[in-house]
């Protein structure tokens, strides 16, 4: 491996030279932009806003739970009848808060965070394309997202949304009359309904783009793994989201009209039917959350090991396998619902089968690290944290897939910890890996490596402290969605030591959540400083092999001057280090990579 001699290296262009950020100016040029990169950044800003909002709710919830029997939450006004204002109980405030925590983070952060924000930015560049197949549709998706988000936030203002993000009927659909009626559920459900369209349209757009706009030389099995992940995600978004939309529409109708019963048994409906419909979407949805994250991790690990990914085809196909089998496991959310024992058996079997492709990915990532040249930069650290956290999440999934142990653990903090390990670990940490990884590409500036690593370490400690304690409490029978774990538990026979364990678990979890919060704020500060003061980033600071590292940082308006041609997706031959700019460039004279 050689480096380019200093005098021959081209100096980096100034940040003021033409790029997508300054190609056109003014707020309007952003609001009506058809540029996938700008739309991606608008998504990024929006999802980060909702991450902060949903995260703040989490901190308040954890603070409330820190001390048993103490209440820090206010009583919110319920309705005004003849000058007398009625108030919700403080536990209602708690219930509304965990509902919004879950609802906002699931629908407004996790689902769009990687595909819509980061995916939008990198997908066309990774294909060497100028934009997605339907740029106008892409902008429309964004505004539909904003519209859905507004409805969701209206639920916050309207109050009364205390159903949990799962909207279980008949709790959510009970018809209330007159002043008792709260619009919260209708607004939030409408919001989720609208967001579904955004999700579907983005999926359609991505699939079309990958079918139509691949550059010369890029066969299906030469697509970067991030694209495979986005492809699998898009398939799930298109197939599953309509089911959710219909379900939510029926829920709204049932809530608004007294005479109509679909899920409410008092009106001839079936509440378990809602659960089937809901999880038919929402289980694939957890893969909508995790699969794109796996795509990022595959990219990051290959780049920072400076080595082709191990088992490319296995990783690519495992994304598709997850997408397909993921549709057939929804019933494992309902083992205690009274569904027949036989159907639970089948769902358990399929659940265990869907674990295998995820395991394959983890082992392939590890094998990639073997004999790599491992650069422990922040994105790589987050990728390794992802492997740790996702492994814990996956392994604890076995307790929940095994029907007999799930019966005990269902709806306890064990489940809460499990899905935070998979969803936060899977999405948030992959998202952070992706944001740090593509940050130089997005803004043409480098962030502080030291600052990023410190934030990572704080996040690592905080996250594990928060949720490991919840595994323990959950296995001991600590139920979720409890506003308080009062002394009543001791009286009921939990025993002093048992009740104490709950109390200690809650305390540790709260302390952990504060540390996690500090770590995330730290990471945000590091990135915001970099945005303004960061060192000028070269086109390929990490030595990444995929196409986005072959265009300028930040990319020009239409990404590439000439449509690039590509060979094998993770080809490091001919990559040379340019010491002057701390950049990696591909030597065009290098011999083509040997075929797999």
């Amino acid at each position, binding site marked *: 491996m050689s480096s380019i001699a200093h005098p021959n290296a081209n100096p980096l262009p100034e940040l003021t030279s033409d790029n997508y950020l300054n190609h056109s100016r003014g707020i309007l040029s952003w609001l009506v932009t058809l540029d996938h990169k700008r739309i991606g950044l608008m998504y990024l800003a929006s999802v980060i806003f909702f991450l902060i909002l949903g995260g703040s709710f989490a901190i308040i919830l954890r603070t409330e739970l820190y001390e048993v029997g103490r209440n820090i939450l206010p009583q919110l006004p319920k309705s005004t009848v003849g000058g007398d204002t009625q108030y919700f109980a403080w536990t209602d405030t708690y*219930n509304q808060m965990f509902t919004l925590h879950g609802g906002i983070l699931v629908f407004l952060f996790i689902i769009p965070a990687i595909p819509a924000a980061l995916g939008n930015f990198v997908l066309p560049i990774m294909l060497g394309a100028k934009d997605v197949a339907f740029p106008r549709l892409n902008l429309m998706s964004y505004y539909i997202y904003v519209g859905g988000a507004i409805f969701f936030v209206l639920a916050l203002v309207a109050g009364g949304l205390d159903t949990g993000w799962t909207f*279980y009927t008949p709790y959510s659909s009970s018809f209330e009359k007159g002043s008792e009626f709260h619009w919260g559920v209708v607004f939030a459900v409408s919001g989720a309904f609208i967001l579904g369209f955004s999700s579907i349209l983005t999926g359609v757009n991505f699939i079309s783009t990958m079918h139509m706009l691949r550059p010369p030389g890029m066969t299906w099995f030469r697509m970067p793994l991030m694209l495979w992940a986005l492809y699998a995600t898009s398939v799930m978004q298109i197939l599953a989201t309509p089911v959710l939309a219909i379900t939510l529409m029926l829920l709204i109708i049932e809530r608004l009209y007294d005479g109509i019963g679909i899920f409410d048994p008092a009106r001839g409906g079936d509440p378990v039917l809602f659960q089937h419909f809901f999880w038919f979407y929402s289980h694939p949805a957890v893969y909508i959350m995790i699969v794109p994250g796996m795509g990022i991790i595959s990219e990051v690990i290959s780049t920072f090991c400076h080595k082709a990914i191990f088992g490319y085809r296995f990783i690519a196909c495992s994304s598709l396998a997850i997408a397909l089998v993921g549709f057939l496991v929804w019933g494992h959310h309902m083992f205690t619902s009274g569904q027949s024992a036989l159907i639970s058996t089948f769902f358990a079997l399929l659940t265990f089968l869907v674990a295998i492709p995820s*395991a394959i990915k983890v082992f392939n990532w590890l094998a990639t690290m073997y004999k790599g040249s491992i650069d422990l930069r922040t994105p790589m650290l987050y990728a390794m944290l992802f492997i740790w956290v996702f492994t814990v999440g996956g392994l604890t999934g076995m307790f929940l897939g095994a029907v007999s142990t799930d019966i005990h653990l269902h709806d306890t903090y064990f489940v809460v910890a499990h899905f935070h390990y998979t969803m936060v670990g899977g999405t948030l940490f992959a998202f952070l890996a992706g944001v740090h990884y593509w940050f130089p590409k997005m803004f043409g500036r480098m962030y502080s490596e030291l600052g990023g690593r410190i934030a990572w370490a704080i996040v690592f400690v905080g996250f594990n402290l928060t949720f490991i304690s919840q595994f323990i409490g959950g296995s001991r029978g600590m139920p979720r969605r409890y506003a308080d774990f009062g002394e009543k538990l001791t009286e009921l026979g939990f025993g002093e030591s048992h009740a104490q*364990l709950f109390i200690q678990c809650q305390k540790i979890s709260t302390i952990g959540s504060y540390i996690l919060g500090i770590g995330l704020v730290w990471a945000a500060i590091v990135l915001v400083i970099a945005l303004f003061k960061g060192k000028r980033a070269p086109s390929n600071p990490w030595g990444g092999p995929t196409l986005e590292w072959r265009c300028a940082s930040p990319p020009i308006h239409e990404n590439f001057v000439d449509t690039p041609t590509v060979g094998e997706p993770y080809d490091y031959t001919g990559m040379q280090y340019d010491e002057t700019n701390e950049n990696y460039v591909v030597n065009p004279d290098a011999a083509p990579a040997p075929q797999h």
Partner: protein
Amino acid sequence: MLMSWLAQSGSTLWMPPPASDIAGPVDWLFYFILYTSYFFLALIIALMVFFAIKYRRRDPREMGSGPTHGMVLELTWTIIPLIIVMFIFFNAIPDYYLSEGDRTNQLEINVTGSKWQWDFQYDNNLHHGELHLPVNRPIRLNINSTDVVHSVYIPAFRAKKDAVPGRSNYMTFTPTRVGTYPLLCAEFCGTQHSDMLAKVVVHPKGGYEKWLAEAARSFLSELDETQYEQWKLLVTPEDLDNFLAQYPELEEFEDKLTTPAMYGEELYTKAGCNQCHSIDGTSNTGPTFKGMYGRTIRGETVFKDDTKLETYFNADYAAENYFLESIHEPGAKVVKGMKDTMPAQKGKISEQEVGALIAFFKTLESGQ
């Protein structure tokens, strides 16, 4: 903090102390998965950290080497996890069916969840706010809800089942350890979800029966007139006899523990039947009740249009159906020689009360 506290209290870290027959196999599987998880987690993390140190980047010009694919490895880490998860799956299923299957000599208790309390219904329609169980006897809980979805969760038994309105769920288990355990609502149900708790008491041999008698005493003494009458309707005479034989200490309630026939007699005056129907055979505006049951089942009753009961009914329930109809809609079949003047009682006298009246009619056969 947690560890030091655990060391002091001598408690286990995972899972509460087991107290049912399900808990044993469930805990075995739990610990099997736990140690399998520890092993794989340790393996993966150790490899990851080892690689990150051993193959750390030493120079920006360095590139990775090593293989990029290997079918043998791929098959290895596909098949080994597959074998492990299938082992777990096949272990979980029998344990799960244990909580889903009926057992011989099981005691059935009905559980009803409503915002935000649990109601437990025992033999003889006794209601109580606590779940009391005999040790080592199979239990079947029939679980229902009156409003939204709740979930019965007894951590010590490793048992949980949703209480779904509009459908009856059940779960089975056998308590194996005497003691007091909490029962929690595990499905979010609103404002006081976290207060929807109940106490489970597992009694030693004989203790359950003693408790039931005591509970029956206080239950009956707390009922008001209406509740008491409703309670009686749901208890058969045989149940009552058994009940009294079982709990002689309840004799003070004997006057209260009446049969449906006695309740029917009360209704006879209370509902105003006595204004038109005699019970001693004297004729009045309506047919006398004396011997009416017998006349009816023998087919002796003749109606206005000269039809008889067998024209309409031929099943064993003919008489009962006829009485129900004649009380709810008296004009449907008017006995020959009588006028159609009786007001319809539908909505005033319930089907259960009609049953009590029929039981009373049966006592009015001549010769009794």
